C-alpha cells in the first residue's frame, strides 16, 4: 500500500474493494482519455500536476449552470436558497472526507497555495520576531514563499529540515530543530517530486510536544490515500481540488475550530462580515470569516462531485491500484540503461522522478510527447529541492487512478526511443 504508513488510516481487513477495481471501466468515466495526441492515444502521466476530470464532475458543474445557478448566501429566492444548501452540503462532504470534527472547520479557498497564505497571514501575523517556523527541503514553492514573506514582514526565523539520500525526511534532524521558540511546522504530507510520504503522525506528535502547531500541505496526499485529520491531530490541513479529479480554482483549508475562532480575517469584503459600519465592522464566525466575496460556487459543487466519485470507488482500492502501478513502473524503468530514479523512500506515493544519463529532461519531454506521453519536466515548483539534489531538472511521471500497466510500457518504449535518437 503506497500510503499505508502511520499517516494514513489503515485499510480495514476484509475490504474487498480492490477486487471491484476495474481500471478499464473507470477509464470510461474520463472523456479526455479517448483523445489522441499526434495520432497516438493520450498517455496521461501528469496527474501530480493536475488530474483529469470524470464525467460526474463535468456534469455536476454544467448541470448546475444550466438548471440551478444563482449566487449563494444572499437571495431570498428559490435557486439561491437551494444552491446555498448544496454549497454548504459540500462543506459537510469535505468534513467527512478529512474526518474533521465539524464542517465549520472547513474553509473554501482558491487552491492549496491560497490556503497556506491564509494561515501565513491570519495565524502568521500573530508571531513575533525570532519565533521559528520549520519547513523542509522537499517543499513546493507554495509552502516556502508565504513563510519567506512572513519572515520579511515580521522577522520570524525560517528553518529547513534536510532530506536523506533516499528522499525521505531526516526525522532526527527535525526533532533536533524543534525549540521552545518553534511556533509552526509547515510541511508537505507527500513530496510532489520524490513521492516520499512523510510520517506525519510522528511529526505532529513531536511538534505538539514542543508546543508548536502543524500545517500540512496535503496537495499530493489526499489523492493517493485516506487522510484523517483527527487521527493525525493536524492543526491545519490544506489541499487543492484540481489534483483530486475536481475543478481548478477550489481548494480547502481545514483548521481546528479553536484555532480558526481566534484568527483574524485574511481578505475583507462581502460574505465574511457580521455587520459593517464606518466606525466598526464585526466579522462572521469561521469558516465564513475566511471566505470574502462571492465564492467559487460552481467549483465547490464540482469538488463535491469529485469527492463523491473517489469515495465511491474507495480510497483503499485506489491506493492499492496505484501501489501496483508504482511497483511495476519502478521495476520497468529500472531496466532502462542509464535511467536514474530520484526518490526511493520506503514509503512512497505513485510519483516517479527520473533522469536519463546525458539527456536533459526537457528533451525527454519533447520527444515522448510525440508518442502521446504527457509527463512533467522541469523543477516542479521545487527549485530549492532541485538544488539539494544537485539537478537542474527532472522528468516526472505521476500516476492517477485511471493509469494502467500498459501505459507504463508505452512510457518505457518512448524512453528507449529518446535514447535511440540521442545515440
Amino acid at each position, binding site marked *: 500500500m503506497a500510503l499505508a504508513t502511520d499517516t494514513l488510516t489503515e485499510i480495514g481487513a476484509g475490504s474487498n474493494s480492490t477486487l471491484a477495481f476495474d481500471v478499464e471501466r473507470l477509464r470510461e468515466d474520463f472523456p479526455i482519455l479517448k483523445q489522441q495526441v*499526434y495520432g497516438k492515444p493520450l498517455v496521461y502521466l501528469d496527474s501530480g500536476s493536475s488530474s483529469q476530470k470524470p464525467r460526474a464532475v463535468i456534469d455536476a458543474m454544467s448541470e448546475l449552470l444550466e438548471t440551478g445557478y444563482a449566487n449563494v448566501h444572499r437571495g431570498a429566492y428559490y435557486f439561491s436558497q437551494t444552491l446555498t444548501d448544496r454549497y454548504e452540503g459540500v462543506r459537510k462532504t469535505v468534513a467527512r472526507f478529512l474526518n474533521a470534527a465539524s464542517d465549520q472547520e472547513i474553509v473554501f479557498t482558491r487552491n492549496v497555495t491560497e490556503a497556506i497564505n491564509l494561515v501565513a497571514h491570519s495565524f502568521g501575523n500573530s508571531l513575533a520576531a525570532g519565533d521559528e517556523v520549520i519547513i523542509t527541503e522537499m517543499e513546493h514553492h507554495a509552502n516556502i514563499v508565504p513563510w519567506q514573506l512572513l519572515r520579511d514582514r515580521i522577522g520570524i526565523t525560517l528553518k529547513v529540515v534536510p532530506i536523506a539520500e533516499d528522499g525521505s525526511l531526516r526525522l532526527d534532524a527535525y526533532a533536533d530543530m524543534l525549540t521552545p521558540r518553534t511556533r509552526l511546522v509547515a510541511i508537505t504530507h507527500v513530496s510532489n517530486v520524490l513521492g516520499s510520504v512523510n510520517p506525519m503522525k510522528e511529526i505532529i506528535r513531536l511538534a505538539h510536544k514542543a508546543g508548536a502547531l502543524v500545517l500540512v500541505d496535503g496537495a499530493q496526499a489526499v489523492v493517493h490515500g485516506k487522510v484523517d485529520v483527527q487521527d493525525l491531530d493536524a492543526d491545519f490541513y490544506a489541499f487543492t481540488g484540481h489534483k483530486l479529479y475536481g475543478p481548478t480554482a477550489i481548494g480547502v483549508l481545514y483548521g481546528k475550530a479553536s484555532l480558526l475562532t481566534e484568527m483574524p480575517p485574511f481578505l475583507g469584503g462581502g460574505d465574511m462580515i457580521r455587520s459593517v459600519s464606518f466606525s466598526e465592522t464585526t466579522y462572521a464566525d469561521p469558516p465564513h470569516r475566511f471566505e470574502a466575496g462571492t465564492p467559487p460556487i460552481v467549483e465547490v459543487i464540482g469538488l463535491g462531485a469529485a469527492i463523491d466519485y473517489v469515495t465511491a470507488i474507495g480510497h483503499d482500492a485506489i491506493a492499492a491500484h496505484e501501489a501496483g502501478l508504482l511497483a511495476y513502473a519502478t521495476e520497468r524503468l529500472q531496466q532502462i540503461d542509464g535511467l536514474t530514479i530520484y526518490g526511493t523512500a520506503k514509503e512512497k506515493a505513485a510519483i516517479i522522478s527520473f533522469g536519463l544519463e*546525458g*539527456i*536533459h*529532461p*526537457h*528533451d525527454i519531454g*519533447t*520527444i515522448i510527447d*510525440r508518442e502521446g506521453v504527457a509527463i512533467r*519536466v*522541469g*523543477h516542479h515548483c521545487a*527549485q530549492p529541492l*532541485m538544488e539539494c539534489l544537485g539537478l*537542474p*531538472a527532472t522528468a516526472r511521471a505521476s500516476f492517477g487512478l485511471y493509469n494502467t500497466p500498459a501505459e507504463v510500457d508505452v512510457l518505457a518504449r518512448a524512453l528507449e*526511443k529518446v535514447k*535511440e*535518437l*540521442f*545515440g
Partner: protein
Amino acid sequence: MQDVLRDLYQEVILDHGKHPRNHRHPPAANRSARGYNPLCGDQVTVYLETDADGHISDVAFEGRGCAISIASASMMTEVLRGKTETEAQQLFDDFHRLCTEGGFTTEQAGTEDREALERLQVLAGVREFPVRVKCATLAWHAMTSALAGGDETTTE
C-alpha cells in the same frame, strides 16, 4: 522515429549539445550576462570580449541546459566572432525569425553574413515546437543583454 523529431534533433545539434564549442570562461572577457529560463531552470552565461573599435573578438559561454539551448549557444559562439554590436543584433533578429516564422528564408534576411545564417538553419526545427523557441534563443538573449549592459556586467 518521426521526421519532426529528426528535424529538431539533427546530428549537428546533438553533436554541439554533447560537445559544446567555446564552453569556457575567457579571462579577458569584458562583458557577460546570464540567461535564465525559469520554466526549466536552464541557465547559460555568455562572455564577450570586445575590442576598441567595437568588434567582438572573443565569445564563449558556460552553463547547463537541454540539447537545444546548449547547441544553440555553442553555434552562436562560432558565428559571432569579428562582428560589431549592430551586426550581432541583426544576426539575432534574423535567427529569431528563422526560429519562429514558417515562411522565412535566408534570402529575406537583413544580415550580410548569409553563411552564418545558413549554418544556424539547423535550429529552425524548433518552429514546430513553440515551447522550445525559448531554448534556442536563450544564449542569444544573454548575448544581447551583455552587449547592452556594457561594462556593468564585466565581472558577472
